[in-house]
């Protein structure tokens, strides 16, 4: 528990969170969301919740990013209706 490190990671988490919802490009948004997940994993590991950090690293940063990108590749640039 080093509060300076906590604060640094937390700032980056907030920046990534805001960037995720403001970026127009869906692929960019999902990549930034992966970065957000990984920073949350770092934050949890740093605060001593190793089990939660492990879950976040595998599910949040690993599988869900792949699933998002797989879903985005099935979309088209402009909506048809």
């Amino acid at each position: 528990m080093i509060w300076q490190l906590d604060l640094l990671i937390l700032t980056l988490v907030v920046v990534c969170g805001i960037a995720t919802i403001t970026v127009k490009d869906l692929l960019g948004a999902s990549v930034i969301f992966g970065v957000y997940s990984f920073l949350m994993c770092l934050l949890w590991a740093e605060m001593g919740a190793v089990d939660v950090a492990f879950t976040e690293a595998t599910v949040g940063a690993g599988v869900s990013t792949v699933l998002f990108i797989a879903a985005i590749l099935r979309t088209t640039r402009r909506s048809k209706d």
Partner: protein
Amino acid sequence: MKHLQEKAQSKPLGESLIVQTAVRMMIPFIQLFGLYVIVHGHYSPGGGFQGGVVLGASFILMALAYDLQKTFGYISERTNAILGSTGALIYTGTAALCAVLGGYFLDYSALAKIIPMNPIDWRSMGIFLVEVGVGLAVMNIMVSLFWDISSGGKMDEGL
């Protein structure tokens, strides 16, 4: 992005020898690590869910580097469904067996009536059985989610 999407719509993303070789060398280690996480789940960080996701990620990686047909060679759709259901059955079966044998739901010490062992040892063994079940179920659900999303439900070549 647009270029990628056009490429994905016209043909599969293309194969790269470097990526395929790297994935082929990494997959056994990823699966070994997943098994380690499941087996050591009850006294170290990790457990059935995380280990299951790591095991599933190895198949997702294979589907990304090659195509879906290659993963069907290792774990077919039918095997996938059967294994996933077996995992859920192991979990609920262990829990219900405890209740049937006179203990509470998920009270593993009641299992000492089947195999005589110290109740404290049975509590350790019982959580291991449950985590094997959870790991199997999660692995197959993750693989099946990726199959369905990447091929649009058609189960053909994938991305």
